């Protein structure tokens, strides 16, 4: 891709970025009006349902309910994963003890564990937070281990030559050096969290976007079901966009590679 192609004029770029979406929207608006299939309502009726659900407050309740669990789980998982990952990355012995267990845990499909969490913790918030923690723990952990292992030995030697304590070495050298890996891992975790919360809410819940989608599918209120799906898609896009921005800001010290 050459420079001219990449930096075309602003209107041209807006056109290139939106034309496919516009076509999809138009097709979705009008084609279902002729096909009249209950399973694929027109975007008009979906928007109508969206307005209804937004006005009666149900939609916001479900969004808040789902995101609360996503963020609680993500935060707990990420803080433990970063600390443990740094230790595992720097102490090979500790890694030898824990690696086999972690490998088995990591490779067990998350949703296969869900019934166990429900047995122990019921179908309330705690089992959902637990499953989000479990699922989002590993991407951040594995990336943190990788990052901590890859710290330039010269930087460590340089800091040590200035008589830095081992605590100082962890916080002032290894953590910032590993941060690009950690942030990339966290972004993966956030994506996983959205998948898992929807699945968990489909299995057993009273609220939440996953519950909402499942519930309206059961009662054949398909335009309301699509409201839930589209809301999740929009949240996902914004979440990823925000995390990419954050990542770019926190790693602005890295040389930009084209």
């Amino acid at each position, binding site marked *: 891709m050459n420079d001219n192609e990449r930096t075309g004029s602003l209107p041209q770029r807006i056109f290139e970025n939106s034309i496919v979406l516009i076509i999809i929207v138009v097709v979705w608006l009008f084609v279902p009006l002729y096909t009249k299939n209950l399973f694929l309502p027109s975007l008009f009726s979906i928007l109508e349902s969206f307005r209804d659900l937004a006005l009666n407050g149900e939609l916001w309740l479900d969004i808040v309910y789902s995101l609360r669990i996503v963020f609680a789980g993500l935060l707990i998982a990420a803080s433990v994963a970063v600390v443990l990952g740094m230790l595992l990355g720097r102490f090979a012995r500790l890694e030898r003890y824990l690696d086999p267990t972690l490998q088995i845990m990591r490779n067990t499909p998350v949703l296969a564990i869900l019934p166990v969490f429900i047995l122990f913790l019921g179908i309330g918030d705690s089992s959902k937070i637990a499953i989000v923690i479990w699922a989002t723990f590993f991407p951040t952990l594995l990336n943190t281990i990788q990052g901590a292992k890859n710290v330039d030995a*010269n930087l460590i030697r340089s800091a040590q030559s200035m008589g*830095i304590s081992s605590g100082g070495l962890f916080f002032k050298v290894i953590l*910032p050096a590993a941060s690009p890996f950690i942030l990339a891992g966290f972004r993966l975790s956030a994506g996983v969290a959205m998948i898992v919360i929807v699945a968990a809410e489909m299995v057993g819940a009273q609220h939440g976007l996953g519950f909402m989608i499942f519930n309206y599918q059961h009662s054949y209120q398909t335009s309301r079901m699509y409201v839930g799906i589209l809301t999740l898609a929009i949240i996902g896009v914004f979440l990823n966009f925000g995390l990419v921005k954050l990542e770019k800001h926190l790693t602005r010290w890295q040389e930009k590679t084209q």
Partner: protein
Amino acid sequence: MAADTNVVEISTAGLGLVYRKRQSARRGGDIYFPALKEVDLEVGKGEFLSLVGPSGCGKSTFLYILAGLHKQTSGAAYIGGEEITGPSLNRGIIMQAYALFPWRTIQKNVEFGLEVKGVPKPERQRIAREYIELVGLQEFADHFPYELSGGMKQRIAIARALAYDPDVLLMDEPFAAVDEQTRGFLHEELLRIWERTQKTIIFVTHSIDEAVLLSDRVAVMTPSPGTIRKIVDIPLPRPRTNALVNTEEFRKARNKVWQLLQTAGTATKEVKKEDGRVVLDTVLQEEVVF
């Protein structure tokens, strides 16, 4: 220049380092690789001493022992009369790879050692600015290392080491990765800074010209296991500039070091010790006479 070279700043006595590679008895037992052997050296306060020697002769290893980052297996090293047991802020190390912290701005990089030392923020900011100015890069204080050229990075690495005011600078091939022209500039910069700060400098290099141009004395090492073969005085007048390389005196000094390196004529062979250990040992050849 050689400020007060009568006072010894750094000395080593019988310094040696033997690496051990563990191996089962069935395969002949552990193997020992001597990297350094019987290094005796005295460096005066404020002196500029270079170490030259063939690749792998252990000159960098020697420097890292002085930095306290490696541990010798025999003998001892002293700084200011005290035995070196680990790293400390009385020595600053400057590496070929710059080793600047990429997530810190230039200003924050230079503050690093002061931060470790616990110097309060306004104080360390002031000191860091002062040393960034000394190396002439004040307009880059808020930039990140990736935005600087190799030569600029190395000047910042020097500023960072100077900022916490060590007595000794240990420089491990600091200019090997920069282009010829920049290197010439950095030589004059380093000499200017050295003359101003009166630090003791031990400078490891592959380049004979560089060693002769900068140093009061050049220590020539033997191939592995390295030991000091001979120390050559460089009686060239100071202050020195790059123009010196065209003089007859420079060529003479250069030639002397070169010949010593050519005939550093040692080789290694395997020697079986009384206790059955197999050891690589040096075979010293005839002294060369000038």
